[in-house]
């Protein structure tokens, strides 16, 4: 059986800049298998011993024949179950982001690469990291060169670098005497971001409102600034057809330039003895704020004692911030924030505060900032 892991994030997001990013890309590999008798299998083995004992003691060759039949049955069972598991390929797609405490949906595709033989009675399962019941799926038959899909969700209770418990395939085919289980030889690392909450209007600091700032000059914003005659080189998509028809000349829309405000999130280390749950809650708040701001067009920088991400925008930058928060480790003693003052607003957040409502540090905006 072949196990192959894939992630949707590979194509859409940059690779994480963590230690694991240095690992070689995953390749196909064979899963080792363990075999153990089922309850019926133990009975069968016991019965074989009994028949063997009877045959030995009586010298009755037909009992020897039955004993041979039972042993052959066990051997054939092993061969068939091995055949049942061979040339199975598992491909798993991970969600792009995993958040602590939130169910994450995984998709698995099981392919039978055998040309002629189907596989029967396969149980796919994976333990839930949160300790809940394992996710399981039963497949009665996968025809030759056939596929079977399965979607399930797992919940990771904690942020940070973790490992997927590992998908298992179990089969008791053909007689139910032995259970053959595959186990992954290499755990699958994942990065779990802090839990992300949807912020209610009351939870959004006033410093984050409003987000967009227009400048009175042509640019690539969303607002219409002017209509003017078409000049070679203009984007044809900006042609305003109605006005062109009225004016008898090609007219294009001129858009206003928009400036994205900047927000710096300064995260201070918690004081020694701060409950871990409180730190996690506060990290979750920081992550939620960062997501809220970025999704509203702000350029956000996360600064901790370990360093700063720099200002950035978009989902890719949000990934960098969330990764930094996911990998944040509480130090033994608070470290100083060695961050130089920059233009933009700053929210200073303390990870040991009972109420993570940030204190806004108002600093002069570099440009026209309505709130400064």
């Amino acid at each position, binding site marked *: 059986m072949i196990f192959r892991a894939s992630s949707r994030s590979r194509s859409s997001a940059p690779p994480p800049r963590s230690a694991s990013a240095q690992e070689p890309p995953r390749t196909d590999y064979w899963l080792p298998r363990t075999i153990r008798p089922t309850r019926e299998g133990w009975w069968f083995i016991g019965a074989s011993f009994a028949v063997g004992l009877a045959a030995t003691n*009586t010298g009755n060759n037909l009992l020897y024949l039955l004993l041979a039949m039972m042993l052959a049955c066990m051997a054939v069972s092993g061969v068939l179950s091995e055949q049942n598991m061979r040339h199975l390929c598992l491909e798993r797609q991970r969600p792009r982001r995993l958040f602590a405490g939130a169910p994450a949906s995984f998709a698995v595709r099981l392919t039978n690469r055998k040309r002629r033989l189907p596989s*029967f009675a396969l149980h796919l399962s994976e333990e839930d990291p949160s300790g809940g019941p394992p996710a399981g799926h039963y497949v*009665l038959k996968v025809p030759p060169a056939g596929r079977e899909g399965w979607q399930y969700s797992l919940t990771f209770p904690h942020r940070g670098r973790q490992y997927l418990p590992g998908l298992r395939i179990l089969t008791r085919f053909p007689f139910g005497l032995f259970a053959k289980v595959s186990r992954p030889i290499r755990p699958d690392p994942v990065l779990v971001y802090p839990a992300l909450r949807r912020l209610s209007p009351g939870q959004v600091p006033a410093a984050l409102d409003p987000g967009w700032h227009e400048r009175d000059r042509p640019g690539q914003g969303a607002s219409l600034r002017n209509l003017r005659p078409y000049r070679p080189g203009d984007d044809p998509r900006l042609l305003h057809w109605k006005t062109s028809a009225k004016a008898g000349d090609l007219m294009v829309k001129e858009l206003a330039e928009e400036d994205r405000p900047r927000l710096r999130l300064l995260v201070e280390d918690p004081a020694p003895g701060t409950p871990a749950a409180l730190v996690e809650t506060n990290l979750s708040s920081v992550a939620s704020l960062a997501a809220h701001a970025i999704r509203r067009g702000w350029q956000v920088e996360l600064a901790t004692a370990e360093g700063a991400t720099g200002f950035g925008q978009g989902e890719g930058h949000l990934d960098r911030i969330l990764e930094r928060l996911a990998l944040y480790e509480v130090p033994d003693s608070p470290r100083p924030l060695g961050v130089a003052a920059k233009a933009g607003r700053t929210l200073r957040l303390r990870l040991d505060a009972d109420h993570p409502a940030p204190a806004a540090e108002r600093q002069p905006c570099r440009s026209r900032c309505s709130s400064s």
Partner: protein
Amino acid sequence: MPFPLFFKLTLYLLALDAFGALYLTGILDWPGLAGVLLAIVVSWWADAIRVRTPNYRRLWDAIAAVFVVYILLDLLWLAESFIAVVIHLLLFLQVYKLFNARSHRDLLDLFLLTFLQLIAAATLTVSLGFLLVLSVYMILGTWGLILLHLKRETELALPERSRELLAGSDLVAPGFLFSTVGVAVASLLLTLVIFFVIPRIGRTFLPLQARIGTMTTGFTDRVELGAYGTIQNDPTIVMRVTFSEAVANPERIPGLRWRGIAFDTFDGRAWSLRDPVRRPVRRGRDGDFVVARPRWGAPFLAYEVFLEPMGTEVLFGLPRVVSVQGRLAALEEDAGGGLLLRAPPSSRLRYAAVSQPEGFREADLGRPVRAADYPPAIRQAYLQLPEVSPRVRALARELAAGAATPSEVARRVESYLSGTLRYTLEVRRASEADPLEDFLFVRKAGNCEYFAASMAVLLRAVGIPARVVNGFQRGEWNEVGRFFAVRQRDAHAWVEVFFPEVGWVTFDPSPRAAFEVQAFGRSSWAGKYFDALRMRWNRYVIDYNLGDQVVLATRLRRRSLAVREGLGRRWALWSFEASRTLRRLWHQYGTAIGALMALLAAGAVLLRKAPGGELGGAWLTRVRARQGPVAFYARMLRLLARRGRPRPPTATAREFASTLADRPELFAPVAELTALYERVRFGGEALTAAEARRATALLQQLATAPR
């Protein structure tokens, strides 16, 4: 066939197969057999009966209670053995479960019960039918267990969808069934291998051999004249004899007879042995029973006898037996030279014996003998005669008149009896005279006992010691299995005559051979094949033991060494020839061969299997890529254009397919091909091998669709 029906059918066939195994044991009487069979058949409709019968459960509780009482009575008084009680219990449990099977556990119990029945039968039968039962059991059991497993797993994992899944998974398709049969056959072969390899131990602690019912026999330990009626022509095989490989053509050995016991005393009606004392035969150093001293210079014949139980303790062998080897507790010899066990065996007996056939020169028999030349013990035991009719004595004197030696007298009597009198199995009394006189002078027809008794009496009447011997004729030679099959009807009586210089010499006055060919005919080839199969079953399965394993291992080793040696020799020869031929070819066609090899190498490079590719190499892959992954769709369009349905340039693939809705025979394949095309063209996926085959089939369907 629907999955539930097929599973049920398999289960019932398995139950019937196990029941067949019990039938082979013969432990069930006809009413019992019929009752159980009827119950099994009726249980097929158990669900319907359960629905219609009020208090069905209670009814079965009551039946079970009654059976418990019965089984106690059975255990204490009724059953002939404990194993019979176990079999009765197993059969009841099987019927009970068939009527009340609801859960997976019940079904598993049914499988277990069938297997227990097989075990019970194994302890009671040695029939060849067991092989058939076992083979069928392996096929049905493999089917049944796999189906039960799939049914159970599916119903436990997906209880609400299990019915639909099992019905739609084409489990009961021929492919699945043939594969399962293949698995069963592989299991059977593996079973045989393991059977022969499992180490046997020489001695068992609880010898348990299948009991075979005592048979009525053509062989008796008395020869009694005057019993009249038609002697049965019983073809039952009582003994099979194989000769060692050293004997090239056993079927050509003349005068083979399987000697049982000899009689010395005649009371006018019956022959018997006067001295009942038996001498224990001592064992030699290697455990063999040493019966007699080997004679110097006489050849040995080694053979193995598989003796069915006949209710007699007599062992049979070629005269004169030198030694006997086998699992025999003890062996005794009576005064007439007969070999006997202490009790009649209840199961098949296998023993090997070595004999030295009577070897003598005619010159030794041709010497004149005086009465004093015979040892006194011989004279006393083998010249005894009752009151014999004067006509008989007169006949004896007449036949002996002028003869110079006892052997001449014996030959004359033998030829007189076989030439003048007729052999028959219909023994009727024709006069009030004593049986011998009636046979010799009135009826002039009888069976071998009359002939033998007459010759012995005639010889004794003129002072020549003689005795009547009971045993079997040589039997029918089975060319297939290379053994003699000796039947009940081969039971025979003949005469042994004592000569001082030689000992006992066999004479057979019965003209039986010609009669038998006419009366019994010969076995058919099918019969011989079947009997050879049965012989092998007995020889290699039922009676397989540690000694056979040692022989098998030795033989395998010898064969493998011979094969290795032979291969080595052939390889040396072949390599020498090959190198010489290659050298010659190289001198003659070196350039052409070099060019050919270069071509082959280039071809191999071009056509090497591409990683992940199906066939061909990178070159082929490129060719295919040029043709395009959607070549099948282009071909479909060409086919449709030829049929007057070209694809308009403005229509998308799906729109074009929908325009064919008026032609269902075209629409169905085109729709499927279009779906494949869209996936390949826009999904960026290649066709799998199965899909490619499917596309080809659809194109074929399109090409052959009516216009």
